[in-house]
């Protein structure tokens, strides 16, 4: 199982080391060394995600971009909703089957969906990959499902599972 290189773990280590340096507001040899040691200790005591599998930067960037766009849209949508006097919401909770393969994808997806305008994850069934999503506007159901599936695909690309490719 563990004979492959584990880039995601490496990425975690680098990220934590960077975080350590950022916290100290100083990137020095001492900080990098100390940060790396702490990162290794922290990741190996089993509190975090296993850190197996790969990581691909391009899809990850794309995911971030999608989320950023969603953020802006979200802001505008919410602003409109708040500022218009009439209540045009029609709420619903729908089940969306997603192709998520691992729990990491699920988390990534939940974050992305929650930052998307008008949608929020109420619950998830990790065994079947089904997400239960709350919609503020039920009439936008199909758009939302498409968007969620798109996000799921990008997430799966960004964090590939070893052996399965994209």
């Amino acid at each position, binding site marked *: 199982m563990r004979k492959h290189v584990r880039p995601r773990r490496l990425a*975690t280590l680098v990220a*934590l080391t960077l*975080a*350590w340096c950022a*916290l*100290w507001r100083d990137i*020095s*040899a*001492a900080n990098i*060394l100390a*940060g790396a040691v*702490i*990162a290794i200790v*922290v*990741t190996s005591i*089993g*509190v*975090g*995600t*296993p850190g*197996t599998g790969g990581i691909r930067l391009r899809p990850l960037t794309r995911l971030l971009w999608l989320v950023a766009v969603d953020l802006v849209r979200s802001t505008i949508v919410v602003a409109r909703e708040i500022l218009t006097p009439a209540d045009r919401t029609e709420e619903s909770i729908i089940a969306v089957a997603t192709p998520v393969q*691992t*729990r*990491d994808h*699920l*988390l990534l997806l*939940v974050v992305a969906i929650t930052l998307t305008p008008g949608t929020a*994850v109420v*619950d*998830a*069934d*990790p065994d079947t990959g089904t997400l*239960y999503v709350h919609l503020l506007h039920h009439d936008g159901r199909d758009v939302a499902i498409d968007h969620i599936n798109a996000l799921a695909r990008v997430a799966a690309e960004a964090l590939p599972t070893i052996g399965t490719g994209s």
Partner: protein
Amino acid sequence: MIASRSPIVRLGVRAASPLAIVIAVYLLFAGHNRPGGGFAAGLVLGAVVTLRTLAGLQRPTHATGLITSGVVLVAAIAFIPLLWGDPLLDQQVGSIELPVLGKVKSGSALPFDIGVTAIVMGLIVALLDGLSDPTAEGGDPAPVEQEERR
């Protein structure tokens, strides 16, 4: 079927834990020069423990051990200076010049703060123990779920 515990929380908490611990360690070490310190570190770790308990993840369970070692540590730090005639709780500051890292300065305030951290964390572990109601009925017993490793 939807489990009584949210899988998403478990994922989120597990993802956030390492960063939170790094932040706690930072607070512990930086405290002497910047905002932070043993209490803050202990409380951050305590919050992590709380979250992991809520999410059903593994967490420290030996509050007594944490408390005992913390108290012994701070009491020892307090008393040791007397062995060479200094007053109670006299701080020993030392610094060494290391090849790559440069000058590293530290004092007995650090282990003192570590003791503080241990006790604060122990308290929160104890609190979680104390607040969990063994008499609550119904539902699945939900033992701490093992981390899935793939």
